[in-house]
């Protein structure tokens, strides 16, 4: 059913990505590729793998931006995958029903056996989160690791998306954003999490946490007392002469 589910649960699974902490290591991108190339969407094909103009299917891509100028400037690493939007146009445009949003958790998926490869969903996604497999002629996308997060064959602790489990700087968090009391929802509230392209109305489930302001001087740090005539050595260190310090 390409129409959005009429009846939905409160659960809204998604990610929270901390732009203050992401060091841009691409681990989330490659670990995602590694899990998913053998998973629900297998394979994540690469074209010209060892030739010029190499490209392939990636569910997660890490961009780098520079924002602001001068001392306030920041370099910001910016990982981006499907945001599992509340109003995903990628789903509603799909003519075949291959794209769908799950009622129970809000995950947006593609059924590759139904997809005709019309690419319309990729046109409808403002975020560039859809991935066309040129070799197979079908659309693929981030599954939120649906075959991992619910996989009862894996130990409980491993049931998180690959990109979250692997992130070395812990810049990625996974959870239920439909539940205001979940850890991720609290994080969003505390840190002022925001939506990408809010003006377009997709209402992404996945939120981003802003970088903290740059060049933050510490509070309460005094200035060094600067005598009018700064003691030149050796007089300046005479203050240590009488220190009685025990070894």
């Amino acid at each position, binding site marked *: 059913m390409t129409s959005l589910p009429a009846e939905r649960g409160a659960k809204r699974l998604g990610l929270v990505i901390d732009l203050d902490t992401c060091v841009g290591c*691409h681990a989330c991108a*490659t670990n995602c590729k*590694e899990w998913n190339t053998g998973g*629900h969407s297998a394979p994540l094909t690469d074209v010209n793998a*060892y030739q010029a103009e190499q490209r392939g299917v990636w569910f997660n891509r890490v961009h780098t931006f520079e924002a602001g100028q001068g001392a306030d400037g920041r370099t910001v690493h910016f990982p981006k995958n499907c945001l599992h939007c509340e109003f995903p146009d990628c789903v509603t445009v799909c003519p075949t029903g291959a794209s769908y949003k799950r*009622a129970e958790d809000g995950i947006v998926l593609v059924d590759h056996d139904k997809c005709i490869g019309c690419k319309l969903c990729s046109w409808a996604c403002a975020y560039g989160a859809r991935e066309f497999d040129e070799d197979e002629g079908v659309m693929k996308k981030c599954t939120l690791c649906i075959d991992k997060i619910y996989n*009862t064959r894996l130990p409980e602790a491993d049931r998180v998306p690959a990109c979250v489990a692997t992130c070395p700087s812990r810049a990625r968090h996974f959870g239920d954003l439909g539940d205001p009391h979940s850890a991720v929802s609290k994080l969003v509230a505390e840190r002022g999490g925001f939506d990408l392209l809010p003006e377009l109305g997709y209402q992404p489930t996945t939120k981003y946490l802003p970088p903290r302001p740059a060049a933050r001087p510490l509070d309460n740090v005094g*200035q060094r007392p600067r005598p009018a005539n700064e003691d030149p050595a050796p007089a300046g260190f005479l203050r*240590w002469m009488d220190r009685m310090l025990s070894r």
Partner: protein
Amino acid sequence: MLSERRIDLSPVVHDEVKYTTCYMCACRCGIRVHLKDGLVRYIEGNRNHPTNKGVLCGKGSSGIMQHYSPARLRKPLRRVGERGEAKFEEIEWEEALALATDWLGGIRATDPKKLAFFTGRDQSQSLTGWWANQFGTPNFAAHGGFCSVNMAAGGLYTIGGSFWEFGEPDWDRAKYFLLFGVAEDHDSNPIKTGLGKLKARGAKVVSVNPIRTGYSAVADEWVGIRPGTDGLFVMALIHELLHADRIDDAYLVRYTNAPWLVIRAPGDPDHGLFARGADGAPLCYDHATGTLVDAREANIMPALVGTHTLPDGRKAVTSFQLLAERYMAPEYSPDAVAERCGVAAADIRRIAMELAHVAFEEAIELDIPWTDWAGRRHETTIGRPVAMHAMRGISAHTNGFHTCRAIHLLQVLLGAVECPGGFRFKPPFPKPIPPGPKPAGKTVTPGKPLGGMPLGFTTGPEDLLVEADGTPIRIDKAYSWEAPLSSHGLMHMVITNAWKGDPYPIDTLFMYMANMSWNSTMNTKGVMEMLTDRDPATGEYRIPRIIYSDAYFSEMVAYADLILPDTTYLERWDCISLLDRPICEADGPADAIRQPVVEPDRDVRAFQTVLLDLGARLGLPGMTNEDGSPKFPGGYPDYIVNHERTPGIGPLAGWRGAAGETFGRGAVNPDQLRRYVENECFWAHHLEPGQKFYKFANRDYLEFAVHMGFIASSDPIVLQLYSEPMQKFRLAAEGHGSVQPPDHLRARVKEAFDPLPVWYVPFEEAKVDTDAFPLHALTQRPMIMYHSWGSQNAWLRQILGSNKLYVAAVTGRRMGIADGDWVRVTSHNGTIKVQVKLMEGLNPDTVWTWNAIGKRAGAWNLAPDAGEARKGFLLNHLISELLPPESCGRRLSNSDPVTGQAAWFDLRVRIEKCEPGEEAVSEPQFPVIERPVGLEPAPEVNRYGSAFRRPR
């Protein structure tokens, strides 16, 4: 409410999971390899592993593509064409080993020095070093001389350990973190994880780096310093702290040589050395008794400053006083250095006060009692939560050794070494200062092992490896007057020196895992020429034989005469040993193994096994039984278990003793590897809380370290701010003693061997016309590539498939250069053509690029028109292994004068825009290397994973 579609939410992921250790870089993370139908299905981090605690970086997560790379070598190869052509024939292992034995056997019987054995990014240096020792050649080193010997030596000679892999910031407790010149480092995942922890806690992170990417991008404050000036910056911080009297004087008195008395007798042969009592004990002035006493005694009250008269009537002054006099001088004030550093004086002052504020006003006190070396119990453990870390941005300069020392000085003045929240050692560090043992090789006897290990630590001129006339004994001139403290060798000089026959020609260059005809060399084009150059008199190659072990078709393969193809990291046993560079944490020692998780599908052998086999064929004593049979017929795993370096101490520390009942020291345990495999391929010991801090003065820790064989005695280790070994070399330069530098090096040694950190202009900058070469040029390691390895990886090469030259936006605008423009970059050594990208977060006097992305066309089984070859480039063509000529015409190596560290980052360049219409191809370009025999052409479409597809 349920989706009507049914999908398999719980597919079978694996048939089996095997644990081993990652080797997509040298960080040594623990991994879980999921195997399905005999193929690698998924690799993830091992949550229980001390190094990575479950996470995996971008490279580690791409292991599948490395393991199945189409560039893997398949069989031993013997050169049939000219060097550099990659024309080979496939031979059997027996033939390959017989050939190598024949070549090497002859050398060993006549002049073992004619073998130069150098290794690269491997993790078996305790084996390879021992092999060289058994062979009898001093000409051995690994990559340390490239990487960060300044960092290692600077730390080891100052605090008994160092940043790099010998210690780590206390990520869990630090409140202020100062990071110098790090893009990736060997602690790849631990740093990322640590930064994540700091950020989560809201600690302040300051990154000092000309370039704002990676770790600097997440820093709360970025200090875009001008390259090569960190020493000044740090000394200005010290200047501020001293003037404000914001130093931990109690710590200095207790744990450092600050109160030790230094002889002031200019001209005397012991001027500047420590005043010592009859028993050799360093002296200090004791306030309590008003006398000069053994400075290492407990319960005295040493004076921090003051001049005292020695029994022999000469004057002596505390080393702290010398230190304070130096750094409090106006030349180190923030105002004096600001312009050279490109950092505002106000910022330097503020950072100094922030450091002091956090160290002293936000000090932490843990409820952990501990006992010091003198047996005094301390009810709590005090911490100065200021942590620092530094790497090659500091060390890869010719003034790097001193800058490293300056940073340690700064940490020590704040009392922030080995305390909660500060910088902490990872056992087996700290080690005594100066470190030991000394390098072996003064005498080389044909057919006999070397007197000791080739690499070691010099403590004075008498330890140098030079002939009576000053001629270096080693081919790389390590431990000569050009690099007296070169404890990791000078790998970057081997080929040049061997080609020149300076100090002597060699017969065989034996290399392992080092792409020396490409990215790991300076002056790449020149090195390729040296490798193919023939002596016109004999028609022989100037470097007659080259044996090389690689696992992949790298650029270097084309230049070898005999190729010994290695396994991939998923196919072999390996040992990440405490004798080498282990995986320890500050909280305890640890080591690890690699086990084969898949069988090789090619005719390749693990290099370590091959090396042991060769050793046995050559009859090397450690590798042969009395009857001449091989001592380790089971290859490397046999050696890992059964080799003992000293009785009871072998490559692995865990599960020693016949039944695995002990660790550290104990009898060989035949079952040891099984125990490791059962424990997920690592062993870790957790120190008691009372052993964890102040290890250099912590009785319980020191005794433990002695038991483990880390150190010889449990005497406290006194941090050496003022370095006496340095002064010994300086005295020699001043004309004292029997071993003195040759005249052309005298002045340089005198200047460089200052016993307190100094700053001087990096050599290349001082020698070239800075108007002609106005810019600094740097490289950075990309987080998703390990040197040259990553480009054969179908995933990683999509992320970074060619590199650009980054130019500061202001500089680009000034020069009329825009994004995408092609420019020529020229140094005193050559010119390259590259494409530009402008950026904001960059020191305006600096340009940079990602390291080792450029590839030679045809190498790595990539299509010759791949972006790596056509658009990518190496900065290495511009970097010379030699400095511009001295006035006498002599050219010294482009290395730190103390340690021989390769000065990659001293490079100065200019850039000029190319003519419009020039071809959009990087330069220089080299002839395409043809795919060697045995390698299949690489596929165009990669569908890895389709085999795991199930009905959805």
